[in-house]
């Protein structure tokens, strides 16, 4: 099974770097066969081509709508209406909709997020609560990669 894990966020905006730092941590370890990990500042259009031939995609991101340190895993479905307000980054659901529209399929996808506490500019460090959340994010990822997913269905 081919799995693409994408951590995204800004590395100079404090806890916004949760996604790429979690991805870096994954990449530093031993990855199961068929699993690829990449980091991005933002999600951009060319990722559609990378996603198109995957069986599964896992997005790693920071969140502002959950308590700092809280980790959430949700199933994602393609959604054309999930259009970003800025043209230079895309919502993961929009990326999946691009996939489905152009290539006739989209990978089974999940979003693993952790609540951030500080998103200050020119901050290269995670807050302690965000730092602790990375381990929980990786637990979710490992479960998704190694087991049948028990994450919530698309809402």
């Amino acid at each position, binding site marked *: 099974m081919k799995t693409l894990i994408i951590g995204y966020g*800004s590395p100079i905006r404090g806890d916004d770097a949760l996604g790429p730092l979690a991805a870096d941590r994954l990449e530093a370890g031993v990855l199961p066969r068929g699993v690829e990990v990449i980091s991005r500042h933002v999600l951009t*259009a060319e990722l559609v081509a990378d996603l198109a031939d995957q069986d599964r995609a896992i997005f790693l991101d920071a969140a502002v709508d959950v308590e700092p340190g809280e980790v959430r895993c949700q199933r994602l479905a393609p959604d054309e209406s999930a259009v*970003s*307000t800025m043209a230079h980054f895309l919502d993961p659901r929009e990326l999946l909709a*691009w996939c489905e529209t152009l290539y006739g399929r989209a990978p089974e996808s999940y979003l693993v997020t952790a609540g951030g506490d500080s998103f200050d500019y020119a901050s290269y460090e995670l807050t302690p609560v965000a730092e602790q959340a990375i381990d929980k994010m990786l637990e979710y990822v490992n479960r998704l990669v190694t087991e049948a997913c028990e994450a919530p269905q698309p809402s």
Partner: protein
Amino acid sequence: MSRTVTIEPVTRIEGHARITLQLGDAGQVEDAKFHLTQFRGFEKFCEGRPYREMPALTARTCGICPVSHLLASNKACDHLLSVSIPPTGEKLRRIMNLAQLTQSHALSFFHLSSPDLLMGWDSDPVSRNIFGVMRQEPALAKDGIRLRQIGQTIIEMLGGKKIHPTWVVPGGVNEPLSQEKRDAMLKLLPEALEIAKRTYAFFKTLVPKFKDEADHFGTMPTLFFSLVSPKGNLEHYDGFLRVKDAKGNILEDMVPPWEYERLIGEAVEDFSYMKFPYFKAQGYPKGIYRVGPLARLNNANACGTPYADVALAEFHMLQESGPIASSFHYHYARLVEIIYAIEMMERLLKDPTILDTRVRARARSNRYEGIGVAEAPRGTLMHHYRIDDDGLITWVNLIIATGHNNLAMNQSIRQVADAYVDGNNLQEGMLNRVEAVIRCYDPCLSCASHAFGQMPLAIELKDAAGHIVDTLTRG
């Protein structure tokens, strides 16, 4: 009576802005302004940072053109070190810049502008978006994605997949190119060139349909500002500054980039966070100039690569004589530049010295002031730093490509509003044209303002007394 029209999806520009159209008593447009409503802060919070942090820090200004900031910033640091970087290091930096240009132009053309170009400005806004393009022209949409993927792949082969690439460093690059990577990159380029050529051929068939837009979308006499090579040819990484007027007269030439302050002044207005650069010799606001693909092609004597030179000749045939005046033709110029970038990458990768292992000059800071200038996809990008004895930044000035075009964008929306907007009967298609002229410039407002938060794009129509009588908002 005031009313609000809301259009979904959001507008197709990089960032958020507001346009206001001021109406006279008879409902005619009397003034038009392009407001950037985002807070500007990068120059300030960079103060106190070690200068070697600047490339990584400023590269995060933008998710679309981080490579441009990375290069301009490292060039400013090269200047601080007072070094000439090894030729192979420079060639490798050039390849990365051209890969970035390819993918950025692809986003602008295929994904942001193609809905208007393929479906028309008056088409149903519900389907006038990238999904509409995918359904109507799936092959074109796939080409756009593939071109971006190739550009990004080359950037990653050079800089690594890490989000904080540290491959480009003050003094050069920190790792030579392996033969394996060189060969892998070369394999990608024929497909990229085929995509670029067929897209260009396709777009040429569309251009005659847009004569009216070409006549009114920022079709005005301005100066053109860009880097050119020592031979006066198309240049994106180094070279000298050239300023040409609307008739084709060269007003300034072969100006070293570190003398940019002799040419450019920066004004501010209370209605926008974006600065208003102007050509000093003509004063503000008369010294209006344009940068970016249109200006680069207007300023260049030649591209210097086979297919791009043919396309450049055809570009100049869009008008009887002189520099191409219409900002609508930024789209055309972008496609010519994609062809050029791919051809030039191939040439550089086939250069016998490209695998040379001497790619970095090492030094400590040897001056207190450094200036780095490169051509970003949207135009000339300038990084200017001052440091103290400890190498800490004491002052920063960034002039971003989109900022250079600020005066021109304001004048362009006025022209489009005059031509298309009926103040007594506001139609979505009219206002889409007002936005579309901004899209011609492919502005990156996040770069230009160094965005802090988000604002939706809104167009406000004001009566003679300044009261808002109509609003169109997106986002």
